[in-house]
């Protein structure tokens, strides 16, 4: 029969794999193929018009630009936070460690209204920024704040385990050879952490590009200014422009799949660099 039979004496291969493939097809693959099929109902010029309209282009710039910026900010502060959690002892460390995952656990709509309240001109943070002439809520910067919130745990949780596994001897050796702490960090620690840092950045970026719930409440959703791409899809759906919505969705889907492949590659690189099994 199949090659599996040779390698394993267990029963249930056909049943478990069959069920896996059927369920995967019904819930994920077949519905996703609807995007591709619906997109092909458009002629190519019509497709191009739909996905390159000025308002849509502005939303790509916003969604991708802010996702990139949020990812970079999270890469820096996520590394600092991971470093603090692994290398230092401080009061409340376990609590901070547990709460880092808050953005994974807090529903996006709750995040959205909380951020909008914080950064509006009467909010806890907004009231101090308003006199300085800084507006966050209902501007593109609101999008950035929301994307920072949802992206932070990705960086911390990919860097932290790698940092934990670095042996003290490695850094002692560097120090005994005359390296300063900064040189040791730059030449020894950072190269080990780099693939994980990049993976965390990519995960945060991928999530941020498609994010909807936490962004729309604080963004203000002004066309051409603070309107994200997922919102344009929803707007088109509400106008019954299914083909237009699907065309934009297919562009986003393609980018998401490319990111997924890139992340898989990065994780393989991390594994190779650190000798970890994924």
């Amino acid at each position, binding site marked *: 029969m199949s*090659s*599996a039979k040779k390698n*394993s004496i*267990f*029963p*249930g*291969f056909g049943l*478990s794999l069959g069920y*896996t*493939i059927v369920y995967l097809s019904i*819930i994920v*693959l077949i*519905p*996703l193929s*609807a*995007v591709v099929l619906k997109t092909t109902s458009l002629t190519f010029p019509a497709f191009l018009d739909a996905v390159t309209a000025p308002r849509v282009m502005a939303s790509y710039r916003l969604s991708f630009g802010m996702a990139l910026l949020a990812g970079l900010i999270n890469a820096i*502060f996520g590394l*600092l*936070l991971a470093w603090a959690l*692994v*290398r230092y002892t401080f009061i409340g460390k376990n609590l901070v460690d*547990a*709460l880092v*995952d*808050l953005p*994974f*656990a807090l529903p*996006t*709509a*709750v*995040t959205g*209204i*909380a*951020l909008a*309240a914080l950064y509006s001109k009467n909010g*806890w943070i907004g009231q101090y920024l308003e006199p300085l002439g800084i507006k966050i809520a209902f501007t593109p910067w609101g999008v950035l704040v929301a994307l920072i*919130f949802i992206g932070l745990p*990705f960086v911390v*949780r*990919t860097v932290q*385990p790698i940092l934990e596994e670095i042996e003290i001897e490695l*850094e002692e050796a560097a120090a005994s050879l005359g390296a300063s*702490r900064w040189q040791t960090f730059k030449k020894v620690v950072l190269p080990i952490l780099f693939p994980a840092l990049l993976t965390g950045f990519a995960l945060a970026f991928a*999530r941020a*590009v*498609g*994010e*909807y*719930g936490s962004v729309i*409440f604080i963004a203000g959703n002004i066309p051409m200014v603070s309107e994200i791409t*997922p919102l344009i899809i929803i707007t088109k*759906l509400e106008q019954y422009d*299914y083909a237009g919505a699907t065309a934009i969705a297919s562009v986003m*889907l393609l980018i*998401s*799949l490319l*990111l*997924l492949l890139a*992340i898989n590659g990065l994780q393989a690189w991390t594994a190779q660099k650190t000798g970890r*099994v994924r």
Partner: protein
Amino acid sequence: MNTTRFERSSATRDSTIVKTLVLVLSLSFFGIFLLMPLFSVFTEALYKGWVYYFKAIAEPDTWSAIKLTLLAAGVAVPLNLIFGVAASWAIAKFDFKGKHLLITLIDIPFSVSPVIAGLIFVLVFGAQGWFGSWLSDHDIRIIFAVPGIILATIFVTFPFVARELIPLMEAQGREEEEAATVLGASGWQTFWYVTLPNIKWGLLYGVILCNARAMGEFGAVSVVSGHIRGYTNTIPLQVEILYNEYNYVAAFAVASLLALLALLTLAAKTYVEWHLKSETNAAPAIEGPL
């Protein structure tokens, strides 16, 4: 453990200035970007006092939203649990071609925007969709109705259990199950008495994350819901409606229920992680988004 070692050795100790700088920067970032939104939910919810708070939660529309959320999670979590166990059994206990492709395909729902997750079910079951005319002929509603909400919830929570169990079962290997089989245990006996006790914490971990996302999903559910009050609103959608009606205190009161759920989830998750670490000595897989 490591912490004290790195701090004790003069060769690897960071200077006080560096340490202070790292702690101040990272913890203020943490406080401003993560803690303040959490605190503000509860402060805003209690802005008009406890009486108003409970009145806002006791609204009939809120109750039907809670019931719908429980229903959606109650269907999605068990289905994805069964799938997760089946998929990880097939992947970890057998060798076959295309295994890596299968693992990548299982991860897809995490990399798809929630809005697109909703859209695909509109394209399949909506009025203009593949089955649209057939469904309306038979008077079955899926989109803008409860089944659509359940489907969207299943989609966005699809990988949670599987992606926890696959690396765990792969790391545990096959020897124990092989021993049980050689000693005459049937497939089910092997699973119940050997595999399940080994994976129970990983399984629980996946279920906790799956449930949190199922109850909190907003984007995907929003697309298929149609926002019919008291009928197709889940708790997060109810929060949005109240907020858009400028009923801020009520919106935050309902949101605080979800924030409490998030805190409970984190507490349960931390507890299970502790068990996972002490029992298997294997860290959970790199986490996905909730």
